[in-house]
């Protein structure tokens, strides 16, 4: 009937609705997903199904055969203290289910909004469902559309651009200055948590070399071994300063340890190639006047957290734009699906009418044997044209009703044909 899409159901839980103790009860590995899909279909609980299981969500997208059986299936799960988990589950139906899948795949429902891994995880879930032949006339087009919508959101909004975390903020600034970190050298002064976090982010963004110095040399040797850096004795920091394109300070020193004079000399020694300094320490480790030097760019911990805030704000804006896009896409998908439904219904109607026509033509042939071949052909053409003309208006009405989502009208219009059939 019209509105196969209305039968679509999304059942599941995510980091928004359930703590990890509950999520882990439902989480499945790839084999588990296969077995569950098989069971749901074998026991005739669902017609079509796809299961997404990641560390943040376990969700079933399905065309159910029996909602009661599905509720029973989920009623079988128990939390860590033997309690039912129903209260953590959400059940989205029809348009809401479509929108939810789009949101998930476009990384709008993720813990870190905009993170790129989720699309791969959804893709994997689609592949498993496809291999288990669990995708049908609704889920197959839906999953295809989901992939293209997710890619569209990623390419047309800024959702993936702004990353969170102090480390990433440091990388973003470095990229804004250098364009890329290939061939760049960073000196980390002090091995505290924050400093290491930024250094690690820089390393994974392609930094060439990490020099590590610390008041106690042994610590810098340890940290250097852990992160693949080069330890530098603390007393020789100033000698190494000209080699560093990026200087990262995070010590508990009470007085500035990097002075304007030191940076000015370092710049001269490195022929005024740009130096980017991040001071994560409070009280500050680098004299603030360093920023007034022509080729030095100094950012302190407040500047960095402003970059983080800016990223958050920009991402919220992007998320808003993306949600609006998903609304439109969900409507578009459901309309296309209805069109497919209607087409098969209308083909049925046309077949019924054709059966009537051929039967009537055959009857009149039996009654009058006097017709010759050209006359029979004319009769055939005449009846065909007549049927087509008569069907045209009601068919257009059905299409219009379907396009407008008026499934009541569609049913009424189509029922007339079914009744005639009986």
């Amino acid at each position, binding site marked *: 009937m019209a509105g196969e899409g209305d039968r679509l159901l999304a059942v599941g839980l995510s980091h928004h609705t359930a703590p990890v103790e509950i999520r882990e009860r439902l989480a499945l590995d790839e084999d588990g997903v296969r077995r569950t899909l098989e069971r749901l279909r074998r026991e005739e609980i669902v017609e079509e199904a796809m299961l997404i299981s990641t560390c943040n969500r376990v969700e079933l997208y399905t065309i159910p055969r029996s909602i009661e059986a599905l509720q029973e299936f989920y009623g079988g799960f128990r939390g860590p203290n033997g309690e039912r988990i129903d209260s953590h589950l959400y059940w989205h139906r029809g348009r809401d289910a479509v929108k939810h899948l789009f949101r998930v795949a476009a990384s709008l429902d993720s813990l870190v909004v905009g993170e790129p891994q989720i699309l791969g995880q959804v893709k994997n879930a689609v592949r498993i469902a496809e291999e288990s032949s669990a995708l049908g006339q609704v889920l197959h087009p839906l999953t295809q559309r989901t992939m293209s919508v997710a890619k569209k959101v990623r390419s*047309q909004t800024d959702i993936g*651009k*702004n990353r969170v975390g102090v480390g990433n903020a440091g990388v*973003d*600034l470095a*990229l*804004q*200055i*250098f*364009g*890329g970190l290939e061939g760049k050298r960073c000196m980390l002064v002090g091995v505290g948590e924050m400093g290491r976090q930024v250094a690690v982010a820089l390393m994974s963004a392609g930094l060439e070399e990490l020099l590590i110095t610390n008041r106690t040399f042994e610590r810098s040797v340890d940290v250097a071994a852990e992160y693949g850096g080069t330890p530098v004795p603390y007393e020789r920091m100033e000698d190494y300063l000209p080699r560093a394109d990026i200087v990262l300070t995070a010590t508990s020193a009470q007085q500035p340890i990097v002075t304007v004079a030191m940076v000015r000399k370092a710049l001269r020694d490195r*022929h*005024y*190639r*740009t130096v980017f300094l991040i001071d994560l320490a409070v009280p500050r480790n680098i004299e603030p006047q360093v*920023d007034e030097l*022509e*080729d030095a*760019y100094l*950012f302190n911990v407040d*500047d960095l957290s*402003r*970059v983080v805030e*800016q990223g958050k704000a*920009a991402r919220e804006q992007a998320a808003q734009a993306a949600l609006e896009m998903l609304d439109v896409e969900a409507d578009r998908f459901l309309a296309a699906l209805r069109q497919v439904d209607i087409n098969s219904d209308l083909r049925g109607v046309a077949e019924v009418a054709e059966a009537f026509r051929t039967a009537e033509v055959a009857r009149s042939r039996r009654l009058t044997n006097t017709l010759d071949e050209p006359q029979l052909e004319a009769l055939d053409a005449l009846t065909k044209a007549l049927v087509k003309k008569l069907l045209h208006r009601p068919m257009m009405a059905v299409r219009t009703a379907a396009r407008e989502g008026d499934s009541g009208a569609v049913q009424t219009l189509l029922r007339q044909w079914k009744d005639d059939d009986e």
Partner: protein
Amino acid sequence: MERLPYIAVLVAWGFISMGHLLPDIVGEASRRHSRTVAVVAVALHAATLLAGLFLSPHPTGFPEALSGMALGIGIAYVSVVHRRLRALGMLLAPLAIVILGTSQVVPHRSVQALEHTGYSVWLPIHLGLIFSGLAGFALSSVVGGVYLWARRRLKQKRFANMSRLPSLEVLDRIQFRAMLFGFVFLTLGIGAGGAWAAASLQELWAVDSKIWFTLLIWAWYGAALQVRLVAGRRGRWTALFSIVGFGGLLFSLVGLNFLLAGWHTYGG
């Protein structure tokens, strides 16, 4: 009829500028073709200009000079606008419109010297080299402006929409390369002019104020390159040299030719 190709080129740049300035109106799909449109526009422009230089009944003058410069900017657009450098296109495309548009409305004046020498194959060579150089300097100064702006934002710790701009290092590299390109071609262009003068005139015409001024600008850019390559001062220094230098070139191009008397002056 003669202006028709130029009008087509202007329309093309209008479309490209719209794509940069009002992306919502032009739409993503057509925006993707803006570089192709630019390539076609540049080809048409070059063909029109060359045909004009060789076939036109009136001798070469100020409009052709401006048109040549607009062509250079178009070439600069095609060669830099891809990937993260889209931001530059936003400046280059409207600049091409303004300069080409001006070339279409200014009165036609030809250079004094041509009345003495007549047409020579040296003319397109001299002009082509000089205006290729000018286009390089134009690109360099535009990028220099963007560099100064981007740098100021970083120094003021203003981070909104940060990732939309190319990085400082990339901007610096482009402004330098464009300047180097401009310098090489300006040098060759001056050389060609000198050779032409030596070949066609009895006396050497070093008395021309335009020549003196151009040599001054040549020395200015030479100094800019020295400061960068020898002293290592890049970034803001290169940008400032570039912007001041191009301002001087514009003055020389527009002002000197009309105001002062000499071989390069536009006659009636």
